[in-house]
């Protein structure tokens, strides 16, 4: 009815290779971005601080892992550590050169984790599939050990923790204890939008096609003239860049300070869940996955006690916590059975149906 391809003609190649070829898609995306910015002014600080900021940060990390696992087909369990590299690099840069704006350092810190990521990506040339997971697990545990054992990384801080010093943008504090959730949300939102746009261009272009060719069959891709070494390492570097920036955002714009424990193996698994539940090889899936895996437990934590209330059953916080685990686990299995290609596939099916709506086909 209102979502139609008909009548939209492409008259040049640029229009043909656009990311959003449909006018309705462009309007929809514009509205979503607008709504996201509007949320900063109408949402309360709980919504912004406890839901939206972490959701965006995890979405960014999921996009990073999706580039590696979804687009290039290399399984990684070291996401948490790569996020950590970004956070620690950002901390070192921020405290060593306080006069440079923190936004610059957040973007630059990604390059450090990209370098580390490419280094640990080297074994991927020889090792494949689940066997590769061990190489990235080595990265995970080795880097985490470095975070604990090298006090230089935290400027010989006695507590061994990262803390966020006060940093401003145009005189408004964006990092540190005095920054309001609203400004932090706006900064995170802008960074995530910019990086998502770049990722979208990467995966739809020549580089993305190279990654996909490697994923589908690396031997055949090599015969077609794609260099596996450069392509795989590039995927590792770009993926780690996104994870590193997400890690820096996580510590300085969400937690406002963190210990090494934030970047443990569970964080890596957490991001992997988001990517698989959201849909491998889909950017919008990364957002869906992050929403489901991160926001679902929060919603359950609010809904479950309310469900028990009318029956006069009072349940302890620990029981709610256990039920939450069970429900999340069961839902993961349920979603995989219903749609093994992830939530992104459901989204695609929905759009297809909308194209012909109100007719069945």
């Amino acid at each position, binding site marked *: 009815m209102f979502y139609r391809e008909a009548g939209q003609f492409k008259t040049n190649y640029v229009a043909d290779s656009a990311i959003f070829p449909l006018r309705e898609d462009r309007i929809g995306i514009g509205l979503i971005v607008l709504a996201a910015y509007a949320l900063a002014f109408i949402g309360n600080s709980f919504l912004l601080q406890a839901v939206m900021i972490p959701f965006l940060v995890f979405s960014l990390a999921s996009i990073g892992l999706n580039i590696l*696992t979804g687009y290039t087909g290399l*399984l990684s369990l070291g996401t948490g550590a790569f996020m950590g590299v970004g956070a620690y690099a950002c901390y070192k840069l921020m405290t060593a050169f306080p006069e440079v704006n923190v936004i610059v350092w957040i973007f630059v810190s990604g390059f450090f984790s990209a370098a580390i990521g490419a280094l640990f990506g080297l*074994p991927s040339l*020889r*090792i*494949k*599939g*689940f*066997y590769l*997971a*061990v*190489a990235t*697990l*080595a990265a995970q*545990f*080795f880097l*985490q*050990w470095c975070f*604990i*054992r090298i006090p230089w990384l935290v400027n010989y801080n006695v507590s061994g923790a990262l803390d966020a010093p006060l940093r401003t943008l145009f005189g408004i504090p964006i990092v540190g204890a005095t920054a309001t959730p609203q400004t932090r949300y706006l900064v995170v939102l802008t960074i995530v939008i910019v990086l998502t746009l770049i990722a979208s261009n990467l995966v739809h272009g020549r580089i993305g096609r190279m990654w996909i060719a490697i994923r589908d*069959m690396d*031997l*055949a891709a090599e*015969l077609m003239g794609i260099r596996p070494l450069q392509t795989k390492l590039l995927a590792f570097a770009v993926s780690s860049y996104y994870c590193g920036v997400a890690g820096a955002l996580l510590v300085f714009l969400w937690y406002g300070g963190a210990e090494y424990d934030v970047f443990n*193996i569970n964080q890596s*698994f957490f991001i*992997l*869940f988001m990517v*698989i*539940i959201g849909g*491998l090889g889909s950017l919008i899936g990364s957002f869906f996955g992050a929403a489901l895996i991160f926001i679902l437990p929060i919603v359950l934590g609010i809904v479950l006690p309310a469900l028990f209330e009318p029956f006069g059953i009072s349940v302890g916080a*620990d*029981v709610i*916590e*256990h*039920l*939450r*685990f*069970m*429900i*999340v*686990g*069961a*839902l*993961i*299995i349920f979603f*995989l*059975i219903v749609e*093994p290609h992830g939530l992104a596939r459901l989204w695609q099916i929905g759009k297809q149906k909308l194209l012909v709506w109100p007719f069945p086909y």
Partner: protein
Amino acid sequence: MDILYKVFIEPFLFMGEAPDLLVQTLWEGLVSGVLYALIALGFVLIFKASGVFNFAQGIMVVFSALILVGLYEKGVPAFLALILAAVSMLVLALVVERVVLRPLVNQPDIILFMATFGLTYFLIGFGELIFGGNPREMITGQLLLPQGTTEIDALGGSIRLQHLDIAAAVIASIMIGLLAVFFSKTRIGRALRAVADSHKAALSVGISLNQIWVIVWFAAGIVALVAGIMWGARSGVSFSLQIIALKALPVLILGGFTSIPGAIIGGLIIGVGEKVGEFYWGPLVGGGIETWLAYAIALVFLLYRPQGLFGEKIIERI
């Protein structure tokens, strides 16, 4: 030069000076290696027969041990509780096959891997809901497992052998032997190997995949129960025990996903390498290297044999 001396010469001199310490370290490494191998064995069984990388093996270890201890605390005799725990593993196998595996048949490996993550979460919540999150003591004495230590005076010092460790090694060896016989000599074992080779070919000669899956998950459950008793006796039964599943990963990868001897030899290499590395080289970098050394060892082996020591050779065709 000094650092080279410290890395390449001093530890070996120290080994020569105190052979009793070396033997002690090797023994401890071997014991923990056997226990790693027990957990890796559960992974291998399931991977061989269904191609599923079962992340839930770690929580199955905890879960089975919790059922055993929980039933005993309710007043069930120890050996009856053992049998009931085994029965509940059978129930778990039946449920998993029906609810998780059957609807997901023919899906990519990573999706099945993810499904076992869901299972892990579910079992963590379920187990804590029933048994509570407090760590418990394993009922070692009631299961007639020996306790205490023997000290052998040899090599200019004394070597301590925990009786429990000896028992663990013996039981694990028996278990592995039984599994080897089961796989190579019995009708079901042959069917399992057929399924591992090719699902379709096995189906075409009349082997029921569903039945085979229940059997391997049950076998993996039994292995988990034994591993749970052994680990529980060493470090108590609690949910933190499930992270030993992560310790089994390098073992598994080192030995190859599909090989039972690989799991055992991989376990021993990792166990010994970890303990020796931590004891002799750990202090050089401030200790605590046990957390990642196993992965580094596995990585070095993998660079020479990408399919693990005993894994089937990966042949790629276009």
